[in-house]
């Protein structure tokens, strides 16, 4: 599998995971309501309840006593039925959402983790030069975070820290073998950048501007005493 295909697969997984994280509980509930068998009877009962309340409000309880009490009894009965239906509807939605979460874990998260474990060390792209980053950072970019642990061990065993990457130090000097960024590191960088972009957009453009609270009485009084 070439590096471009690996990048595309990783990108698809990342986009799917991001989209899933953007799905709010309200949206999930809205989608679930579309397939909920309790939703149509509940909406019908709610409509009936509102019409009964309206009629009861329009007539006098003294003049139309019989009709008013009949409606009232119906309303009491409807209240119980609506609460039961609501309970069932919420239970159904909860089950569906938990099933959806399980499905995303099995369908997206787990395969992505396995993919990263399988192709995590594959070089996605080569760095423009071997001297862009220090050799220690080059080793991490090339081999992943495990290099931090294995680097010193390799140094003890082979005499240099990046044994897996290079056959000789001379090749690095001559720029024959170039360092690159592995898939694991690239995915981590992509997730960090995406979350930072999300934070920036949310903070600067979507979040409601906070207004400075008026100074409390305590602070004003202390300020006055300080002035004295």
């Amino acid at each position: 599998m070439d590096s471009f295909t690996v990048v595309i697969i990783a990108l698809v997984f990342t986009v799917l995971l991001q989209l899933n994280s953007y799905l709010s509980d309200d949206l999930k509930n809205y989608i679930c309501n579309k397939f909920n068998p309790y939703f149509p009877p509940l909406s019908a009962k709610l409509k009936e309840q509102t019409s009964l309340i309206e009629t009861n409000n329009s007539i006098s309880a003294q003049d139309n006593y019989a009709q008013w009490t009949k409606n009232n009894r119906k309303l009491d009965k409807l209240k119980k039925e609506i609460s039961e239906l609501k309970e069932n509807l919420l239970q159904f939605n909860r089950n569906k959402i938990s099933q959806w979460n399980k499905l995303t874990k099995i369908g997206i998260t787990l395969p992505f983790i396995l993919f990263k474990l399988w192709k995590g060390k594959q070089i996605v792209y080569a760095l423009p030069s071997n001297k862009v980053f220090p050799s220690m950072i080059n080793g991490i970019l090339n081999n992943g975070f495990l290099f931090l642990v294995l680097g010193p061990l390799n140094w003890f065993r082979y005499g240099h820290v990046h044994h897996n990457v290079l056959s000789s130090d001379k090749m690095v000097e001559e720029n024959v073998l170039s360092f690159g960024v592995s898939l694991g590191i690239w995915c981590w960088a992509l997730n960090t950048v995406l979350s930072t972009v999300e934070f920036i957009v949310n903070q600067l453009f979507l979040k409601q501007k906070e207004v400075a609270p008026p100074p409390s009485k305590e602070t004003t009084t202390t300020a006055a005493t300080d002035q004295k």
Partner: protein
Amino acid sequence: MNELSEAEKRRILRERRQKKFSNGGGSSRLNKITGQIDSKLSTESPLDSRPNNLRKSEKKESILTAPNPAIPSINNNNKKHIDTSKVDNVEINLFKQLADMQNNGSNSDLFSLFKSLNNETDDNSLSKNLLKATRTDEKTTPVDTALLKYHNYLVNTLKAKTILIKWLFFILPYLYLVTRNGRPSIVLLPKMFNVLLDPSYFFMIFTSFEMVATSIYYQKLQAIEKIHNINTLDHSNKIVKLVAMIPEGVVPIPNLKGKIILLLQYWDVLSLFLTDICFVLIMMGIVAYY
């Protein structure tokens, strides 16, 4: 038995009443009940008994030492002891004033307890430790939630703006110039700057820029903290809040909370640096493919 006339009886009664009132009347009776003046009830608290005993012993010592000028050292020691107690009392008063400022009325009994402990123990170590512990808590004064919310909003906005400016106005153009590899340059730079565009200098220049940018960010952050008198990590970080709940002395690390705050500050700087490195990697990838 000669009987008194009605007028005499009335006079005697009037005199008795006047005598009673002149002696204090109702108030003296009230004092007797409440245990103040002329009370037969004991008003001494068990907490007061020890200092009294101490004072008595001090008096005895002074009586013993006063006629004998040959032993001045004991006197000096006593003076020192009194001086230290005065210092402690000043500390307690200061603590009381601070607590009053926080409108914590329930501490009055606690102060008397501290005072008694202060008098009880000779080395005052326990009370001093307690005062120390409370003083460390005083540093985290309660903050108005609306002000804290506004402060957090300002801090987050500052962070977002700093990252955005760094990415758009430095890292992106610099990365383009470093990785252009024969592509035509948009900007015509003088030859002396061409050395800086060498990829081998990239990390050095990038790290220097990060240092300058982070120090500017922290100066701005501290200015916001100074205006609102709020320590951001102290009031909004969950880890710090959890560590603050551990009582002093349980963990054998002195000033654990301060150390955690310092560690989190370093982590904050490191995370800013790592975020920028991630952006560099992603941008380098895009440049490498296109």
